C-alpha cells in the first residue's frame, strides 16, 4: 500500500537545511514530551487504579513542582525562540545584491518576469548558486508563492508588494504551488522551478523573446504617461524629483513620514493625494485603470533604478 512513500520533501536551497534542523529539533522536543506525558498517563492510570490503590493521598499541590514545570518549558521555548528568531531574520532579510525577478499571481497562474525582460508563466528558470530576489504581488485575490524544496513561502497580496529570496543549491526541477486558497481552480495553480547552471540559464534566456527589461519598460512608460513632465530633475516645482529617493523615508505634507518603497510608489500612482509629498500641491491625477500590475512593477523598477547621477545627466 505504501511503496514509494516519500514523506519528506527535497532540500535544494541554502536556507532549507537550516529550517530542517530547527524542524528536527522541535520534532525531537515534541516527541519527547508526547512520550513522557502519554507514558505517565498510562502508567499512572494503571498504577493508581482503584483495585490496586487502597486510599488516595490528599495532595493539594506543590509550589516547587509548579516552579519546576514552568521553568523547564520556559528554557526550552526560549531556546526554540532564539533559534527561530535568528533564522527568521535571516530568511526575511534579503541580501543587498541579487537578481531581481518580478512575480504576479492571478487566478490561476503565476506570471514571472526575469531581470532581463523575459517572461514566463507557471515556470521559473533560475541559475544555481545565485541570490534570487522576488518582488511579488497579485492582480486579483490573495495567492501564496510556495516552493517546498526551498522551504520558502510568501503571500502575494493584491494592492501591495511582498518579497522573498532564495539561493538554489541543487540543479533540478522543483514544484511551485499556490498555498493560499484562491478559488475554484486553486489546486491547479501549480508550476515548476527549473534550477540550471548559469551557462545553461544564459542559453535558455537567449532562446526566449527578450523584449525590454523591466527598467527599460518602466522608463518608456514613465515618459509615455508623462510622469517625467513633473517628476524629473529640473522639471519645475509641480512634483518631487524621484531620483535617489527609493528606500529612504519621505516626508508628507501632514508632517508624517513614510518609507519610500514599492507600496508607496503604487499607492501614489493610484491614489496620488492620499499621502501627499511635503511641499507640493495635490495636482497629480490618478492613474487608476490606466496601468496594469505589470506596468506598475515596471514603473517601480525604473524609479528604483533612478539615481541622482543619472537624473543629473539627463
Amino acid at each position: 500500500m505504501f511503496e514509494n512513500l516519500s514523506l519528506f520533501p527535497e532540500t535544494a536551497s541554502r536556507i532549507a537545511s537550516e529550517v530542517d534542523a530547527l524542524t528536527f529539533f522541535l520534532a525531537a522536543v515534541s516527541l519527547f514530551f508526547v512520550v513522557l506525558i502519554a507514558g505517565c498517563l498510562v502508567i499512572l492510570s494503571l498504577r493508581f487504579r482503584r483495585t490496586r490503590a487502597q486510599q488516595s493521598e490528599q495532595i493539594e499541590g506543590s509550589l516547587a513542582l509548579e516552579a519546576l514545570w514552568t521553568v523547564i518549558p520556559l528554557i526550552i521555548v526560549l531556546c526554540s525562540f532564539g533559534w527561530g528568531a535568528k533564522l527568521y531574520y535571516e530568511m526575511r532579510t534579503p541580501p543587498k545584491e541579487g537578481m531581481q525577478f518580478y512575480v504576479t499571481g492571478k487566478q490561476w497562474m503565476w506570471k514571472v518576469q526575469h531581470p532581463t525582460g523575459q517572461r514566463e508563466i507557471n515556470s521559473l528558470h533560475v541559475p544555481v548558486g545565485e541570490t534570487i530576489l522576488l518582488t511579488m504581488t497579485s492582480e486579483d485575490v490573495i495567492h501564496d508563492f510556495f516552493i517546498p524544496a526551498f522551504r520558502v513561502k510568501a503571500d502575494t497580496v493584491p494592492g501591495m508588494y511582498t518579497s522573498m529570496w532564495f539561493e538554489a543549491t541543487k540543479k533540478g526541477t522543483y514544484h511551485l504551488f499556490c498555498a493560499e486558497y484562491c478559488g475554484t481552480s486553486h489546486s491547479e495553480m501549480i508550476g515548476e522551478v527549473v534550477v540550471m547552471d548559469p551557462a545553461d540559464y544564459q542559453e535558455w534566456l537567449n532562446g526566449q523573446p527578450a523584449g525590454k527589461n523591466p527598467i527599460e519598460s518602466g522608463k518608456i512608460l514613465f515618459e509615455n504617461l508623462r510622469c517625467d513632465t513633473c517628476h524629473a530633475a529640473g522639471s519645475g516645482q509641480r512634483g518631487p524629483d524621484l531620483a535617489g529617493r527609493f528606500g529612504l523615508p519621505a516626508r508628507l505634507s501632514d508632517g508624517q513620514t513614510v518609507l519610500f518603497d514599492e507600496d508607496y510608489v503604487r499607492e501614489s500612482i493610484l491614489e496620488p493625494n492620499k499621502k501627499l509629498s511635503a511641499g507640493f500641491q495635490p495636482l497629480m491625477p490618478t492613474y487608476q485603470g490606466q496601468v496594469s500590475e505589470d506596468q506598475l512593477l515596471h514603473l517601480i523598477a525604473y524609479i528604483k533604478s533612478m539615481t541622482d547621477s543619472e537624473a543629473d545627466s539627463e
Partner: protein
Amino acid sequence: MSSSTTTQERPLGLDPEGTVHVSHDHHELGFLRKYIFSVDHKVIGIQFMLTGFVTLLVGGLLAMGIRWQLAFPWTEMPLIGKVLFPETGGVATPEGYTMLFTMHGTVMIFFVIIPLLTGAFGNFLIPLMIGAPDMAFPKLNMLGYWFWWPGIVLIAMAFGAEGGGPAAGWTAYPPLSTVEAAAPGSLSGQNLWLLSLTFVGVSSMMGAVNYVTTIVKMRAPGMTLFRMPLSIWGLLISALLQLFALPVLTAASFMQLFDRVFDSGFFTPPDVVINGQRPEELGAASGGHPILWQHLFWFYSHPAVYIMVLPAMGFVSDIIAVHGRKPIFGYKPMAYSMAGIAGLGFIVWGHHMFMSGMNPTVGLVFMTATIMIALPSAVKVFNWLGTLWGSRINLTTPMLFACAFVSMFIIGGLSGIWMASTPVDIYIHDTYIIVAHFHYVVFAGSVLGIFASIYHWFPKMFGRMMNETLGKIHFVGTFITTNAVFYMMHQLGIAGLMRRTADPYAYETYAHLQPLNQFISYSAFALLGFQIFFVVNFFHSIWWGKRVGRNPWKANSLEWETPSPPGHGNFDKQVEVYRGPYEFSSPEIEEDFWPQAAKV
C-alpha cells in the same frame, strides 16, 4: 424585568425561606413552555446539546465528503453525494469541494463546538455548580438559544444558494470573499454565511453576558471565587473572551457584508482586475486593504480557539478529580493558567499572518507571545499528571475520555510550538500539518472533552446512567480512529501536501500520497461509525438507563446536591458552601469525599 427584583430578594440564589422553587410547588407549564420555549437553564442547555448533535452529524458528514474526495477524487460520493451534487450525479466539483470544507469548518466551529461547550454545558452547569436557582437573565438565556436558530436556518439556506454555497473558506479572506467575480458562491451564498455568523455571534453574546453576570452575582453563600470548580473558571474565562472578541468579528462581518451588498470597498485595494473586470468599473468603491480583514478576523478567531478549549479543560479537571478521588493538584495555578492562556490569546493573532508580508519585527512580537502560551499549557498538563499521582482511579468512560483529552491536547499544543517558530511555520503554513494541529486541539481535545462531560453529567441531566460497556467501546474506537486520522495528517503536511486543494493529485508529486489519504479516509469513516455506539447509548439511556440518585459519582460540587434530574429552581434545600470542590480522601472524615455543602 421580574428576575432583577427576585435576585435582590434572594441575593445569593436563595429565597427568604431558605428554599427555592421546586417543581411540585410550581404550576405545571404546557409542553411548549416547558420543553420548547423554556426559560429554565437546564432545558435550554439540553436544547443546545440536542441541536448540537444534529449539527455535529451534518458537520461530520461534510467531513466525510471531504475525505471521500481526497481518497477517491472525482468519483461518485456514496450517500451524501446525491444530495450535495445532484447535477453531477454525486461527483464532487471543484466549487463543490471548496463549499464542503468551508461549510465543514463553519458548522463545526460555530454550530457544534462553541454551542456544545458554552451553550449546552455552560447553561446546564453554571447555576447548578454555583448554587443558583437559574441564570441571572432567564429570558435572555432563552432568547440566546432562539437567536441561534436564524443562524442555523441561514447557513442551511446557504447550501442551496444561487451560484453555489459559500466557498471562500471559513476564514473568508477578501477579495476572494468580497468580489463576486472571484469565487463561486459569491452570489447570495456568502451573504447568507455572513448573516448567519452574525446571528450566532449575537446568540453567543447573550449567553456570555448571562454567564458572567450569573457567576459574579449569584453564587451561593460561601461560594468564594476560589471555591468554584474549575469548570466554572473555564466557562467564566471563555465567556469573557467572547465578550471582548465577538464584537470585532461582528463588525468585520458587517464590513464584509457592506463590501458585498453596498460596494463599500473596505477590503478591496484599488485597481485589482478580477476575472477580467475592475470592481471600480462595476461601481464598487476601492482603496481598502485585504489584510485588514485578516487582522479583524483573527483577532476574534484566535481567541475563539481558547473559547473552544478552556471550558473543556475545566470539565476535564473536574472529571479527573472526581474519578481519581483526589484533590486537583495545584488548583490556583490551574485557574491562573487558564487566565494566562486567555490573556495571551488576545495578542497572538498575528501568527496566522506570518506569510502576509508582515514586518519581521512585528512578527517577532507575535512569535514571542505565541511561544509563551506553551507555559500555562504546560502548567495545566503537569498539574493533571500531578492529580493522577497517588490517586485511586475509577477507569470509567468519562475518566477515559478525560485522560484522552490530556494526551491529545499535549499533541495539539506541542505542534502549536511549530507554528510559533516562524521559520518552520513558513514551510508548514497552509499544509496538512496545520489541519492536523487544529484538529488535535478542537477535535481530539474539545470534542473528546465534550464526550467526557456528557458521560459524566448525563446522570444529572436525565437521572439515569449511560451504559458503561457501550461507552468503553465508543471510547476505544474513537480514540484509535481519531489518532489514525489526525496523526497521519502530520505526515501529509511534512511531505508538503497543502490544505484546501480539491485535487491534491493534480500534480504527480503528491500522487504517492493517495494511499495514505485513503488510509486516513477509511479511518475517518470508522470514526464516524463508532459514534453509532454513542448515539444508541445516549438515547437508550435517556429512557432505559439505570436510575441513579443525587450523587452517583460521589462528587463534591453543588450540582450533585440536587435531585437527578433537578426540578425547576434546582435546589430543594438550602445550600451553603463550606469548602472547595476537591476535598477528596480527606483524612478528617471517614468518607473519601466531602461535599462542598456538607456542614461537617
